[in-house]
């Protein structure tokens, strides 16, 4: 099924794109991450221009996180106060990200920066997740209970001024901490076309020290709004949102997300996290190799 993408200026096989959407949707349903970290590099690999890939992947993440966010909202799993602060930070972050994007594009280093960010972030977080889930699985087999992690926020967070009470998260911390965290994910979303869920969730748990019951819901809430802001930002600045590409990705990912959510209920969470960690590490290694080996084509062209 050949589909012409009017913004990417390219004909693609529609079924491949839908399948790609379904794959990332499956991941997002199973693990609660956006799946953008897979979509963007795969689209680029398929020949879609990098800017169009990042811009259109953001709207796919929106679609994939909608139903999850609704489900958590019904269960009361969203701390709206915390979510609002994170979203505010995220929107500021997309603005900063847009400026950075332009600057790096003018310097010709946008691709390299995106690749290095991928390697560092995916490598770091994938490694962390793998380490933790392996430890958890081993402890389970031996029958030793996993030592409960003390839920405390990072000392740096405590040193910030101006404290608010976040009742649902069970926190009394400065709103600057989630604001900065939101900004960081906003910048990453704009640059990499990822939702930032796989960064946000561990950060909320280990840096902010939020209660586990509201972490996933609140992160989905934040991702939902920040990816919406990202899509708008791309539509207004880079003008690279390809509505046809986004529709195809959405078609696959929204269905994939539902199926993934059903899988997730049956599987063990430690195993799910190990699988996710392996996928994330795989992408990071592939990207690192891409940076180190001589590329097949060393020239790139940008219209002036």
């Amino acid at each position, binding site marked *: 099924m*050949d*589909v*012409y993408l*009017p*913004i990417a*200026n*390219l*004909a693609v096989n529609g079924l491949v794109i839908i399948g790609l959407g379904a794959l990332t949707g499956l991941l997002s349903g199973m693990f609660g991450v956006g799946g953008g970290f897979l979509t963007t590099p795969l689209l680029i690999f398929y020949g879609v221009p990098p800017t169009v890939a990042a811009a259109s992947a953001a*709207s*796919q993440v*929106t*679609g*994939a*996180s*909608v*139903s999850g966010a*609704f*489900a958590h909202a019904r269960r009361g799993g969203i701390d709206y106060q915390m979510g609002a602060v994170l979203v505010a930070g995220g929107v500021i972050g997309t603005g900063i990200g847009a400026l950075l994007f332009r600057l790096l594009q003018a310097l*010709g*280093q946008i*691709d*390299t920066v995106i690749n*290095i960010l991928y390697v560092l972030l995916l490598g770091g977080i994938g490694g962390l997740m793998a380490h933790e889930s392996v430890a958890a699985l081993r402890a389970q087999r031996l029958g030793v209970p996993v030592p409960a992690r003390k839920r405390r926020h990072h000392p740096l967070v405590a040193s910030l001024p101006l404290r608010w009470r976040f009742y649902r998260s069970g926190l009394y911390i400065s709103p600057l901490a989630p604001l900065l965290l939101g900004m960081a994910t906003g910048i990453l979303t704009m640059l990499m076309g990822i939702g930032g869920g796989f960064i946000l969730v561990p950060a909320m748990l280990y840096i902010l020290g939020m209660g586990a019951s509201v972490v996933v819901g609140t992160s989905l809430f934040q991702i*939902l709004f920040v990816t*919406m802001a990202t*899509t*708008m930002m*791309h*539509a*207004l600045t880079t*003008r690279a*949102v390809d*509505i*046809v590409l*986004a*529709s195809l990705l*959405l*078609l696959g990912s*929204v*269905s994939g*997300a*539902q199926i993934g959510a059903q899988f997730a209920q049956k599987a063990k969470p430690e195993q799910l996290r190990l699988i996710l960690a392996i996928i994330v590490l795989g992408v990071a290694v592939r990207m690192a190799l891409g*940076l*180190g*080996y*001589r*590329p097949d*084509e*060393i*020239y*790139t*062209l*940008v*219209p*002036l």
Partner: protein
Amino acid sequence: MRCAFLLIILVLIGGAREPVLVPEISQHEIQVRQGFTGADLLLFGAILSPEGTRAAQGTDIVVVLEGPARSIVLREKQKVAGIWVNADSTEFRSAPTFFAVAATRPISQIVDDKTAAIYELGLKWLQLSPIGVIDPSEQQRFAAGLVDLMRRQGLYQEDDGAVHTSGDVLYQARISLPSSVQTGTYTAETFAIRNGKVVASAITRVEVKKEGFERFVALNAENNGLIYGLFAVLLSVGMGWLAGRLFALV
């Protein structure tokens, strides 16, 4: 009066040596619509001498199809501190977005380098108008890099045997455009070459344009960013929500 008549005769005789090219193209307009996967253009025509006799004998045909030019930055990756990054770049003011050359036999056998360079017969002779001062060897390296990059995407082509002649009168060449072609006016220039000299040339034009839905999307993305973005957001939220509702029913 007598003088003028003689002059006309002389011009006619002089002109009689030069063949006339009558070029035609299978499509003067290519519409980029949904399902567009590229197009095949047939460039054909006849070479005639003014008396109407066969003229193609000993004449070579070169067809050059050129897309709209644009200014570009070409970046070159180099290994810096163990990773490949964009380290060098150059700017070209007029790099064609599409360039295809077809000929009856290898161009180096048809004309000398000077003629080839004047008429841009071949990818080697592209006139890219580099911006700023760069030394010729560097310029050549970048030009070769551009040609290599564009060839891989099927946007630059050079085919030595793609022009077929029949009966010493007709010629035809098939050039395929990939789906990633830019919209705009394409010019197809046909050259008749005899003994290393261009004896006749003629130009035809092809218009490549987006039509219907594709045109609508491209225009709105460019001019109505706000509404376009809002629509994209609504679409993604709507589809996510709908999928949630549908699967809840199952």
